[in-house]
Structures are given as structure tokens and as C-alpha cells.
């Protein structure tokens, strides 16, 4: 069920009504049933895969927990009778046992993901004419696998005890708003509000509804409309080169932002309607002044997942530290220090690319980001020198320059997302320099992308609203501000928003008078 269907809206309305009518202790069970139904509607066979993940994780985490507890009690009891050596040995043994469970569960679950998502890609790169295994990708498998494995690793690290109720764990893994575009939550962060008993709170509920409306506005009025033009450009690379490529990048940047943040708004808003707090996944990323900052503000939950569960573990792992030491001793201190960071960064970005999709252009995209980040790391001393010489750091025009530069840099990288293979992407980049069609584009070319003048005006107005809202949000949540004003103001604003979505949303069958003219019958 996509967010932008009437089925989904009915689903939420019915679910919300039930949620606040039933006895509070059943609320989380209702959410679990709803999530499984939601999942089952997408595909009944998918339920098997997510169940495998939940069950395997449950078994592994209970085992890890048990081993840890047994160790803790036996250490406590025998504190005095054991030597330091013996304690270390028992600890190592315990850790090894825990690690076995960890590794088994990780391999099993990432294995499922790899098999379903990547086997076609891998095999078809070896055998050119491979037709494909025909695996269907379960809904949200990348999201729920990562979310559940994060939980597994946290339990292994002893951050918190394992959840003893497999159904509560099941709800955490399968909570439906997250399955489509995230965010990827942490267990200690999400489960308190997810599992708690809730009373109906008008303020939280209406904030949730307002957030959902805002999300639909971004998705239906801006993103789905702009998508028409974006698709025209990227699906016909031979016809739309030169300036069109830049135009496509620009449009895609806005479209992806509106679609992704809109989807997250809906997810978080839906959570809020149930009194559940999902973490923010975006922090006005297009105001970032550097690529590193961008990745702290865009798809935050994915970034932090990779940082905590991949980047840090790799870069401070014993082998890496040893390698670093060796290089520092035998070659250069500078290089030695960099090695863990560089290797970890590239691996993380390679994986990030792969996470997004099973194709070479995602891999190139991922590595591209990683390399640019490392380059900008290397350039830091140069930048520092520049800023010591020229005092522009806090000047508006310089910040504007940095924001614009970051936007275009990310837009260029993101183009690998668009064209379906790497070769075409490079060809399109090249055409920006070689194909001179600015005048064609300005003299009506832009009207041939599937959007008319009214659409562009509508987009301009909507994006302006979006920009103003973003600028305003730096001072704090707008809904909170509004709630302090008379009710009529919120009502007018959000009802207008609602009507705008109904009227201007890009959904349904378009009205084309020519369809109604009967040809002959």
C-alpha cells in the first residue's frame, strides 16, 4: 500500500479509531496486527521473510542475553576465587559464544537480503545473458533488516537487554510506517513510545495530522508533478542532453527532496497520530554548507546506522588499529592515521551505494560520495588557511556560495541515481559541455517535458512555500507556534493545505478534453 492511495488513508482512519477505542493494553498488539496486514497486502509471501528475520533475531538475542547473564552471575559469585587471568579467559570464552550467535544471525539475515536483492546483479555480471532468478523483493526488506540487525548488535554490545516478548520485537521490526521510506529506528529509542499505553491526546493527534498533510502536499503537489518532467528527461537521454541534463538534475534534486521528506513526514505524522515518536530523518539538508554536513542532515537514520554499526566497528577494530600502527611505524605517521578512516569510509560508502540498489550506478554513486568526502577532508587544512586569510566565514554571501556549491555537488553525484547505467550518466555529463542548447530550452523546450505553464507556476509557488517553511523551521516547530495562536489560524492554514492537495495534487486520471470527444461509435 503506497502512502498516496485512498486505501492507505482509509487504513489509517480505521486503525486510529480502533486504537483509541480498545483497552490500552491491547494497543501494541493492534499495531502489530495492522503491520502484518499491511505487509500481507503487499504480498503474502513477504510475511515469511520478515518472520524469519524476527524469529532468528529473537533466538539469537535471547541466547546472547542468556550467555551474558550467566557470565554476570558467575563472575559475581566467584569474584574472589578467580584470578585476573582466569577472569579474562572466562570473559573471552563468553564473548566468543555471544559472537557466534551474533555472526550466525547476521549472516542469516544479511544473507536473505543479499540473496533476494543482489543475487541477480552478481550473477548477471558473471554470465552476461543471465535472465534472473525471479526473486521478488519483499517490501521494505532493506529497512527492516537493517533496523532489526541494529537491535541485534546493540544487544550484543550490551546496550540494553533483549526484548523477551517475540511479538513486541515483531512490532519493532515490522512497524508499518517505516517500511516504505524509513526512518531506521533504534530499539531503545522507539520501543518506549511504540509499546506504551496511550490516551488520546488532541494536541499530539492534531500535530500528527498536520504533519501528514504537509507530507502529502510535498509528495502530491510538488514531487509527483515534478516527476513528470524528470522522467521525460532521464528516460530519453538521447533527446534531452546539454542543458536539459542540468535541468533534470535540478528538478530531480527538488523532486527527490519533496518525495523523500514528504514520505517521512507522513511516516512520522502517522506515528504521532498513535502517540509514537519516530526520529527525524532530515534536517533541512539543502542548507548544508559541505558534503559532510549534508550527510549528517539527509537520510540521517541511514547515516547514523552506517556510522555506528559499520564505520566505527571497522575503523577501530583490532586488525585496523594494528595495520594503522604498522604503517605509522614503518612508513608515515600521517598516512597511518588516515588508513582506518579511509578504508572504513570507502567500505561504508560502497555499502551505502549497494544498499540503495543492485546496480553499478549505485555503486559508483556511493563510492563517488565517499571519495568526495575524503577529498574534502584532505582539503580542510587548505580551507583553514583560506579562512584565516579571508574573513568570510560568517558572511551571508559566502554561506550562500557554500550552500549553492553543496547543492550542485550533490546534484551531480545524484545523477547516477537517474540514468539507468553508468555509461549513459557519463555521456550525459559530457554533453553538458558539448551540446549547446540553452536557447532551445529557454524558447519553449521546457514546455515539452510534460508540464504546462500553470504547472510551473504552481511548482514555483509551492517550492517558495516550502522554502519559507524551511527557513521558518530553523526557529522551531511551526505547529507548536501555531498552536499558541487562535484555533482559526491553524484551521485556515491546514484546511487550505488540505484543499490544495485535493485540487493540485498530481493523482488520478488527468482531465483531457480530447478523451471525451467521441470519434466514432
Amino acid at each position, binding site marked *: 500500500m503506497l502512502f498516496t492511495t485512498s486505501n492507505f488513508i482509509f487504513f489509517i482512519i480505521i486503525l486510529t479509531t480502533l486504537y483509541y477505542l480498545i483497552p490500552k493494553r491491547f494497543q501494541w498488539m493492534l499495531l502489530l496486527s495492522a503491520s502484518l496486514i499491511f505487509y500481507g497486502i503487499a504480498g503474502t509471501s513477504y510475511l515469511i521473510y520478515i518472520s524469519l528475520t524476527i524469529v532468528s533475531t529473537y533466538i539469537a538475542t535471547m541466547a546472547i542475553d542468556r550467555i551474558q547473564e550467566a557470565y554476570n552471575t558467575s563472575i559475581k559469585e566467584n569474584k574472589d576465587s578467580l584470578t585476573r587471568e582466569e577472569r579474562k579467559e572466562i570473559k573471552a570464552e563468553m564473548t566468543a559464544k555471544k559472537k557466534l550467535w551474533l555472526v550466525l544471525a547476521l549472516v542469516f539475515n544479511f544473507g536473505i537480503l543479499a540473496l533476494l536483492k543482489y543475487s541477480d546483479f552478481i550473477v548477471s555480471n558473471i554470465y552476461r545473458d543471465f535472465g534472473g532468478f525471479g526473486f521478488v523483493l519483499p517490501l521494505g526488506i532493506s529497512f527492516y533488516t537493517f533496523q532489526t540487525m541494529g537491535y541485534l548488535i546493540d544487544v550484543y554490545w550490551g546496550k540494553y537487554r533483549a526484548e523477551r516478548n517475540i511479538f513486541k520485537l515483531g512490532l519493532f521490526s515490522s512497524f508499518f510506517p517505516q517500511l516504505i521510506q524509513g526512518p531506521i529506528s533504534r530499539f531503545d529509542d522507539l520501543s518506549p513510545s511504540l509499546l506504551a499505553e496511550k490516551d488520546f491526546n488532541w494536541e499530539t493527534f492534531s500535530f500528527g495530522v498536520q504533519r501528514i498533510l504537509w507530507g502529502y502536499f510535498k509528495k502530491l503537489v510538488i514531487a509527483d508533478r515534478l516527476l513528470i518532467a524528470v522522467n521525460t528527461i532521464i528516460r530519453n537521454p538521447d533527446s534531452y542532453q546539454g542543458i536539459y541534463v542540468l535541468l533534470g538534475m535540478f528538478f530531480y534534486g527538488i523532486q527527490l527532496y519533496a518525495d523523500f521528506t514528504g514520505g517521512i513526514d507522513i511516516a512520522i505524522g502517522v506515528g504521532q497520530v498513535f502517540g509514537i515518536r519516530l526520529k527525524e530523518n532530515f534536517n533541512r539538508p539543502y542548507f548544508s554548507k559541505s558534503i559532510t554536513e549534508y550527510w549528517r542532515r539527509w537520510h540521517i537514520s541511514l547515516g547514523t546506522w552506517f556510522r555506528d554499526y559499520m564505520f566505527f566497528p571497522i575503523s577501530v577494530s583490532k586488525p585496523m588499529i594494528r595495520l594503522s600502527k604498522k604503517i605509522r611505524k614503518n612508513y608515515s605517521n600521517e598516512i597511518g592515521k588516515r588508513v582506518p578512516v579511509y578504508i572504513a569510509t570507502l567500505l561504508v560508502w560502497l555499502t551505502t551505494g549497494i544498499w540503495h540498489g543492485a546496480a553499478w550506478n549505485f555503486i559508483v554513486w556511493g563510492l563517488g560520495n565517499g571519495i568526495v568526502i575524503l577529498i574534502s577532508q584532505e582539503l580542510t587544512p587548505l580551507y583553514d588557511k583560506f579562512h584565516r586569510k579571508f574573513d568570510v566565514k560568517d558572511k551571508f554571501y559566502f554561506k550562500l556560495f557554500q550552500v549553492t556549491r553543496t547543492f550542485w555537488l550533490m546534484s551531480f553525484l545524484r545523477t547516477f541515481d537517474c540514468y539507468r547505467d553508468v555509461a549513459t550518466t557519463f555521456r550525459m555529463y559530457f554533453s553538458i559541455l558539448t551540446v549547446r542548447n540553452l536557447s532551445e530550452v529557454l524558447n519553449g523546450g521546457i514546455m515539452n517535458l510534460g508540464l504546462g505553464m500553470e504547472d510551473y507556476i504552481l511548482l514555483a509557488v509551492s517550492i517558495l512555500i516550502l522554502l519559507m517553511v524551511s527557513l521558518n523551521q530553523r526557529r522551531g516547530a511551526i505547529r507548536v507556534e501555531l498552536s499558541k495562536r487562535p484555533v482559526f489560524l491553524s484551521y485556515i492554514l491546514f484546511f487550505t493545505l488540505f484543499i490544495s492537495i485535493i485540487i493540485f495534487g498530481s493523482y488520478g486520471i488527468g482531465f483531457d478534453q480530447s478523451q471525451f*470527444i467521441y470519434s466514432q461509435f
Partner: protein
Amino acid sequence: MRRNKTVYIILALLSLGILYLVQQLFMPKYISTIQEGSLVEEYYLEDSNHDVLFIGDCEVFSNVSPITLWERYGISSYIRGSAQQLIWHSYYLLEDALRYEKPQIVVYNVLAMKYNEPQKEAYNRLTLDGMRLSLTKLRAIEASKMEEEGTLSYLLPILRYHSRWNELSLEDLKYIFKKDKVSHNGYLMRVDTKPVGYLPRERRLADYQFGDRSYDYLDRITKLCKENDIELILIKSPSVYPHWYDQWDEQMVDYAEKNDIEYINFLDYVDVMGIDYENDTYDGGLHLNLKGAEKFTNYLGSILRDSYGLPDHREDVELRAIWDKKIDFYYDMKAKQEEELRMYGYLKSVGEAAQKIDE
């Protein structure tokens, strides 16, 4: 606290009101163009009953003139027609009409038997949007829906027509609540002429048998009429295109015989009716113009009076008053259209689009 509650209730009602207004604004009005869209809803404006109900596609709403039927024979009638009306549309429109009246005769044009599947989303809307909300309408929607359509968009048509936002016109505002009539008891008048020219050669079909779905609904229409003591007459209207195959004609003859109802193929009586395709059609033979329609109706009326004994209501004072107004409207429009023809060479009021015919 109580004050807050009233505020919310007021706001809720206000919201519903505004949504209703917006929906009314966005519905296409079908007045200056695509007038077929107004046909189905104009039926509900009638304030008297009808002895004859015509049901079917453009071959009834373009070829039959209820005013002629009244003027010559005093027979009251209505045409529940619509653009490319499919047989399930017809069945449900009949069921819908029977909620308001019980005619003596139902005349059904069988051209639509050739369509066993839903055809075009736009024509679904032209036929169904005008129906009043009822269980019948819901059943009609379910029966007619194409893959990309959703029932919700029929119950809340704003969901279908919201994309008209960039082409709303003054007409949408002018007729937001009440519309002017465009038809004469379901007849769309055309006084212009375009003689039959080149007609594509009839193609041989692989299979002439009408589909199961068509027969199923024809059975239902037959049954509905029998149950309500209504005489059903199946006809083939005298349009020369699309081609009416002999094999199709045979099936209808057989069907009529088996079900003890009458089937008349008026293409056989073109000469008797005096219809001449040089002057009596406005689009090269697909539909008759006013002259042709009156000729056809005249002949049809004599059958209805003689073989079916339909009464002459011209003495009824009440009905006379109602129909006199209709007659005035009819001849006013005739004069207006003829004036337009003189001034512009084409019928401006019917809209540019209706002038283009796909050959």
C-alpha cells in the same frame, strides 16, 4: 470546554460546505461543449411521466425527437441516452428510471451489443456522473469500472476532476449549482448538414457472436421489463455507420423471437421513412440531423400508436402546458442554431470539438 466543541463542529460543517462547493465548481458543466455529458442528469428535471422511454447510445439521443412524437401523436417520451452507452449502463439507467416512473414501452437500440467489455473511462464518466446516488448507481459503477478507475472517484468526483484546475472557466462558476437545459427530453438537436461521403469498407470479423456479458444484460433488461409489465422493443436506429452486420441482425431477430418481443431494424425502412443521407445527417451518416430525426420519429411514432395503442395526451390540460413549454424551447433552439449556421457556417453553441469528426 463546551464553547470549544461548538467551534469544532462549526469548523467541521464549514469544511464540508467548502468541499462541496469546490466539487461543484470542478465538475465539468457540459454546456458549451460535450453536451452529451448533461443528458443523464437532465432526466431528473422532468415533472411528468412518460409513456415511452428510449434507452441507448447516440443512435437514440441524436436520431429520435420526443417533441415530434408529442406534436404528431401526443405521445410523451424521454430518451435516457448517453455517449457510447454500454448495455450495462443501459440496464442500470433503466433500473434507475423505474424508481421514478413506469413507462408503457421501453425502446432499446441494440448497437451496444457489440461491446462486451468496458471501453473508455471518459464515456463511463459521461454516463455515470449524471446519475443520482443510489444502490443502482453503485452497482452500475462496479459493472462499468475500468482498471484504472476507483469507486471512490465516482462517489467523490472532485477526486477525478480536480486536475481541471488549470482550465476552469466562467462557465464552471456560472453553472455551479443550476444548469441550463441542453436537450429536448434527451434529444440533442443538430440542424447542420454533412452528407454521407466516404465510408470505410466493412471489415470481415473473426467472430460475429455477441458476447456473453452483452446477452446477460440484454436478458436482464428483458426480464426487468417483463416483471414491470413494460413492453420492450429492440431497434436498430437508421445510422449507416458503424456498420451493422447481417450476422448481428440475425442474432437480434433470433433473440426477439425467443423472448417474444419485437425487433425492428430501421435500416430496412430508410426509403419508406424518406430519409436521404445527402441532407438528413450532420456527420456523414453516423447520426441524423434534425430533419432526419423528425422523419425517423414520425415513422416510429406511427408504429407506437398503431401497433401498441399508445394514448394521445394532447387533450390533457396539465401535460399540454408542460409540453407547450418544451415545444417553445425546441423551436427557439432550432431558430438559434439556424441563425448560427447562417452567421458562422457552423454551430458555435455546440462547441468546436463537436465539429471535428474522426473518419
